[in-house]
């Protein structure tokens, strides 16, 4: 019976590592389970980190749990000897070894990943116009609301939040192969902008403005997910994200200009504007009881 338990514990690292490798190298049945194919350079770097740290972890998992299983196999009391267990209380050299080696590995990991983080979240793209370097202006203003996404494209003036913005709901069309900056704000509660293919995620916090940037290398239709609980309809808060060629993009934008006349009036009368924009939306929500909120209004 002791052998049975040692085998059970030995199976943990074996199955664990096998499945990690299967997911990493795309072997059935886990071929599509892990992350979808990366669409950007920054995503590739994150993937390398992701796979590298997982391989390292798998190696450590194998070492430790295998030792546990082996100790169970080797040292189980089978009642065939009267010898007592080894009387050892501590070993300072061992303690130092298994503190220092992991410490070195972790310090290496800590420094190694800083660049990727900076690229993704800190080094906002810049442009130089007439010798003046400034942040690259966002192409689209993303307004997250319960339970959908509003996209305001910078119109002819190239600036978002102006009269000539082009409004599209739940569909984001962007040119592939270009560095794109999005500005993001929330109308109500916290939302989170998640595009797995771009390895991109950013919470959108009411009262704060966030910027994200990315550069997709191919044309593809993917999805934007909301990954911060925002209420009962959180699950259906999705939008389409289409990467198209520059020519297709320009044609599409022209189409939108004629199709839809935006009325984005920023900062004019915020509270009134918000009430207006939420009106159609609230009709859908009327079946949800909000006794406390009613109390506040009255």
């Amino acid at each position, binding site marked *: *019976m002791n052998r049975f338990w040692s085998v059970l*514990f030995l199976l*943990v690292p074996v199955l*664990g590592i096998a499945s990690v490798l299967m997911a990493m190298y795309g072997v059935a049945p886990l071929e599509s389970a892990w*992350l979808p194919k990366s669409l950007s350079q920054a995503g590739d770097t*994150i993937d390398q*980190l*992701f796979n590298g*740290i997982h391989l390292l*972890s798998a190696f*450590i998992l194998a070492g430790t749990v295998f*030792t546990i299983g082996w100790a*169970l196999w080797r*040292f189980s*009391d089978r009642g065939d000897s009267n010898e*007592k*267990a*080894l*009387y*050892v*209380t501590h*070993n300072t050299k*061992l303690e130092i070894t*298994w*503190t220092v080696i992991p410490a070195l590995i*972790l310090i290496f990991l*800590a420094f190694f*990943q800083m660049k990727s*983080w900076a690229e993704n*979240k*800190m080094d906002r793209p810049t442009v130089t116009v007439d010798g003046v370097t400034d942040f690259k202006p966002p192409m689209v203003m993303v307004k997250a609301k319960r339970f959908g996404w509003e996209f305001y494209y910078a119109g002819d003036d190239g600036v978002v939040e102006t009269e000539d913005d082009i409004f599209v709901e739940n569909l984001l069309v962007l040119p592939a192969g270009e560095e794109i900056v999005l500005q993001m704000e929330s109308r109500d*509660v*916290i939302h*989170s902008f998640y595009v*797995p293919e771009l*390895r991109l*995620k*950013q*919470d*959108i*916090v009411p*009262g*704060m403005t966030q910027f994200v940037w990315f550069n997709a290398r191919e044309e593809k239709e*993917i999805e934007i997910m909301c*990954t911060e*609980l925002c*209420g009962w309809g*959180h*699950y259906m808060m*999705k939008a389409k994200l289409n990467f198209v060629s520059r020519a297709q993009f320009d044609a599409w934008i022209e189409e939108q200009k004629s199709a839809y006349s935006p009325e984005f009036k920023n900062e004019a009368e915020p509270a009134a504007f*918000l*009430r207006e924009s*939420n009106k159609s*939306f*609230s009709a859908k929500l009327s079946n*949800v009881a909000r006794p*406390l*909120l009613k109390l*506040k*209004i009255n």
Partner: protein
Amino acid sequence: MAEVTVENSITPEPKGNVVSRFVWTYVFATDHKVIGLQFLFSSLIWFFVGGFLALAVRWQLAWPWSDMPIFGHMLFAESGGQMSPGFYNMLFTMHATIMIFFVIIPILAGAFGNYLISLMVGGEDMAFPRLNMMSYWFMWPAFVCIILSFFMPEYGAAAGWTSYPPLSVFQGDAQSLWLLAMVFVGISSMMGSINYLTTIIQMRAPGMTMFRMPMTVWGMFITAIMQAFALPVLTAALLMQLSDRLLMTGFFLPENIAVNNGVATSGGGQVLLWQHLFWFYSHPAVYIMILPAMGMVSDIISCFSRKPLFGYRPMVYSITAIAGLGFIVWGHHMFISGMNHTLAMSFMVSTMLIALPSGIKVFNWIGTLWGGKLQLTTPMLFCVGFVSMFVIGGLSGIVMSAPPVDIVIHDTYYIVAHLHYVLFASSVLGVLGAIYFWFPKMFGRMMNEKLGKIHFFLTFVFLNGTFFPMHFLSRMPRRVADPYIYEGLKDLLPLNQFMTICAIGMGLTQLIFVANFFSSMFFGAKAGRNPWNANTLEWTTVSPPPHGNFDVQPIVRRGPYEYSHPSTECDFFPQTETS
């Protein structure tokens, strides 16, 4: 030294008829063991409630919008038994709330803390028996609030156990009850922690120096310190959110946001402030939920290896280091929350540092096993299970402490996998091992070994079947009622169904435990004082110990781990034994 008979001066022995005896023994109980058992039983009952909620969550993920068995037609008759998305949000919110605040924290600190601390340090009772009684009483307003909240709109709080404003501020009334319940739980834990600290510092038997205390007591001691420092912050934050909801203050609400056609809020607040305050408690809470289990596992592994705990002092120091570092890592929950991105770097470094003391503990447990004479009893199997599962949970913790990687896996099922490996596969396995180990002391009878081993085997297999595949769902967001609404996630349905079947199996397996627990309580083989041949003080008294604990005052002469000492005949050397 003279042997002193312990006088029972705390409460009079209950007299009178059955009802008044019951009330005096179980309601106005000041005996730490009775209070410990009260915590144990209420936590176990909530464990099953929380488990049912988890199964309902899994049901929706495997067979979305299908008829829920049993409850579907009771609650959602008009929609033909399918749950509403708001109900789904309630399910995972209440599952987490109950499992964390009503099960793991109370069973570790409340049940085992109360039951074991006094016995293990050789005291007659806790330092403040009436405060101890109050600490259990304060669980009941929390229970009542949570039970009531199930009857409020949407059948309970549904803003996630993290309750991020502004969403939580605009939730239904159930959220207010949730906040109140958490305040009561906090007060209960606070009273407990003050009591544990005082007892451990003041009520130790003669000879019981700090470095002769078993790891269980060290775990409880450090946990109590963490609770005492972290809880006030949570309590303040809870009251702030409550006043945002009820008194129209704006601690967490910025200007000009409007939900559901309501008026724009007064504003002036910071949304991220809640997250900082909440995680300043709730990250240490993660360690509050594992350090006592680590302590108990250390004791059990040493006992069944018949070998001293390898590196006792490094074990103590590493617990202390985990607790200390635990206070400066909360920001790793907020890497992509919009918090300053430079700050993420410092939180990343402190989070990685915490891997070191955790690693030291794992290596020392393996060192304890190595060269031992292992007795693979049920408690031992659960504890070895704890160690191997903690390795997985700890390693996935390192993966997500890397901020660039966290961009991908934050708020996805990878996180769910990680936290269940730490909280379920580690803490709960540790708790189950501890129940099997101390059951003879608590009830004077042994639990059935065969049933125990079947329980372990099935739990171990099913928990890995449930939680290990979650690591591969790193593109599936958590808290989403119907992930298959996304084209890119449709292919994950079969994997989710597999996990749900394993989860149902795991739920059913716990019935074996229930059967074993209650049948052993009445019909188990009688346990003597020391059925496991263990060294620590609680095994020197009768099982179950009387009010006042020890018939003779224990005098401690050595550390708790002198197993297989070369100078002794037998392979254990109790702490009180004269040499």
